[in-house]
């Protein structure tokens, strides 16, 4: 009977699971060339962001959004050192983290957001009805809805697909392919994690004492959203890159929230019963 139903509803078997794919973005190698931003836009045919100048260093992208799936940050740091100033410039290519427990996916009421066979998080454009719940649910501010007056896939939610179409053909995602310094590395998540640990060791040995990994299974940032399948090697604390210390997964507090709501409702029902009974004698 189930088979009959599947035939009737034209339901296909999901593709068999493959090894988890992801990005390791090593910010210590980033030179801020924005090739990833351009390659992403080109491959995914995303429209331009316009020509606004933010005045914030070389960052005229601002943040990730519905039509911007890679964003290079330019962090200028100056520190007084005696009579002179020490300067350093941090660059980081931000992207959807493809969380193991994705807030956007859990929020999605239509099932448009799914986990693919590569363990990535993907928006099915033919299902999404643009309810907008995933937008504030994401703790990283990644996913966004295209405005209704746009020319591009109007009204639905978008974010990095980890180049799902390229992955299907065993190709490297556009951003990683275009990165000239191997700051963006693509591969099996487990292997990338090994590589990241090794790289961190090297940097620490060279005296980069503030270097750290963000999004590893053992990190505190994985406490709620789980390991990030696109994770980072950072040279400063996460906040400097606008990354939350412990990204929140809304599901974790939902039962308590419903509990308070129910308590008020039950309280009202009890008061109402007393009040109305009082009039009955």
């Amino acid at each position, binding site marked *: 009977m189930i088979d009959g139903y599947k035939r009737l509803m034209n339901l296909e078997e999901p593709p068999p699971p493959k090894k988890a794919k992801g990005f390791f973005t090593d910010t210590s190698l980033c030179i801020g060339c924005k090739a990833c931003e351009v390659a992403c836009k080109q491959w995914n045919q995303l*429209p331009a*962001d*316009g020509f606004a100048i*933010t*005045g*914030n260093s070389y960052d005229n992208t601002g*943040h990730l*959004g519905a*039509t911007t799936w890679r964003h290079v940050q330019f962090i*200028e740091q*100056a*520190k007084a050192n005696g009579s002179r100033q020490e300067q350093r410039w941090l660059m980081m290519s931000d992207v959807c983290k493809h969380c193991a427990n994705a807030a956007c996916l*859990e*929020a*999605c009421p*239509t*099932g448009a957001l799914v986990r693919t066979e590569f363990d990535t998080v993907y928006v099915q454009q033919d*299902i*999404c*009805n*643009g*309810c*907008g*719940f995933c*937008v*504030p649910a994401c*703790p*990283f*501010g990644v996913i*966004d*809805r295209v405005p209704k*007056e746009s*020319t*591009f896939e*109007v009204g*639905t939610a978008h974010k990095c697909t980890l180049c799902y179409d390229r992955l299907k053909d065993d190709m490297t995602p556009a951003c990683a392919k275009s990165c000239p310094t191997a700051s963006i590395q693509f591969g099996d998540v487990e292997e990338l994690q090994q590589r990241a640990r090794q790289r961190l060791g090297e940097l620490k040995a060279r005296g980069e004492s503030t270097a750290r990994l963000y999004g590893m299974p053992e990190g505190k940032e994985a406490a709620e959203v789980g390991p990030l399948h696109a994770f980072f090697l950072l040279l400063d604390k996460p*906040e*400097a*890159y606008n990354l939350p*210390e*412990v990204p*929140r997964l*809304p*599901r974790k*507090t*939902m039962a308590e*929230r419903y509990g308070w709501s*129910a308590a*008020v*409702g039950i*309280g*009202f*029902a009890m*008061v*109402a*019963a007393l009040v*109305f009974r009082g*009039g*009955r*004698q």
Partner: protein
Amino acid sequence: MKSNTPHLRKNLPAALPKSPSPARGGGQGGGSGGTQGYYDYPVVRRPVWTWEVPAYFWLGGLGAGAFVTASLAQTFGSADDRRIAADGFYVAAAALVPCAPLLIADLGRPDRFHHMLRIFKPLSPMNLGAWTLTGLTPLAFARGASHAADTGLFHGPLRAIAQLVPRRLTEVLGSFLSLTLAGYSGVLLGATNVPLWAKSKLLGGVFMASALSSGSAAVTLQAARRGAPAATLHRLARLESAASLGEMAILTGYLVQSGKAARPLTTSRFAPPFWLGAVFAGGLLPLLLHGVARGGHGRTVRSLSTAAAMCTMIGSLALRWSIFEAGKDSSEDQSASFDLSKA
């Protein structure tokens, strides 16, 4: 300032972040202590929802509250209470009619509204709400129809059909769905990473209390309009006051728990609608009016009850609207976002 170019800086904060001035010395990070992020860019995205959502929360809550009040009166009330409060089923049906269109209008792709019901996923409050509204609306209409049959509003075959509705079963099922509808909206907003909505876990309770006070107020309003006996009006007023008191109590808890995250609501441009609309007009004033009406008779009670009920209902709208809109500003509050995600 709205740009004509679709993709031009569409979601940057209204005032573009200023670059860190050299005078700030420490620059970004740099070990100067405190939580300093990437310029003053927001950590999370600004919610894309518009006025339809608070309007729906208000109407849906009001309808749900009216249904629960009417149902409880059927179970526990005197003959007068039952007859008068049953008009609450009309109120519920009327309030629920615009809900689905409002929700559909707010979608990015309204033509795909039915995708909400292609799966059942109660983990997503949005999905739970869509199913609840779908279930409750026909129940409110059915119970309203049976009330119309009882009061002689319906005649002939329509009356015969409406009398087939199992009243008690509809009331029990409908009350359960009503409480879900009244209770999930605050949880939905809380299940985000917007500091004003998510910092305190009490928002669901606040919206529930507001739904029940405005719903019982709507029943009171209708009762006063129909010239209900003073005793029934007093009981409805007592119930409404209890809900308002509960609302003020849990709202206080919500504000205290939210702390600094509540600033976009309490001290910004949304302060007047919040303090004057939601707290004064929606909570304190009706309590005062009902207090004055207590012990009164006839027209005095009716007019005071009417005024109080209208205040409660308007205050409920002010509460939803101000918390909803202030939440959008709160999403751009970088330090509140860092606060929310502290270990």
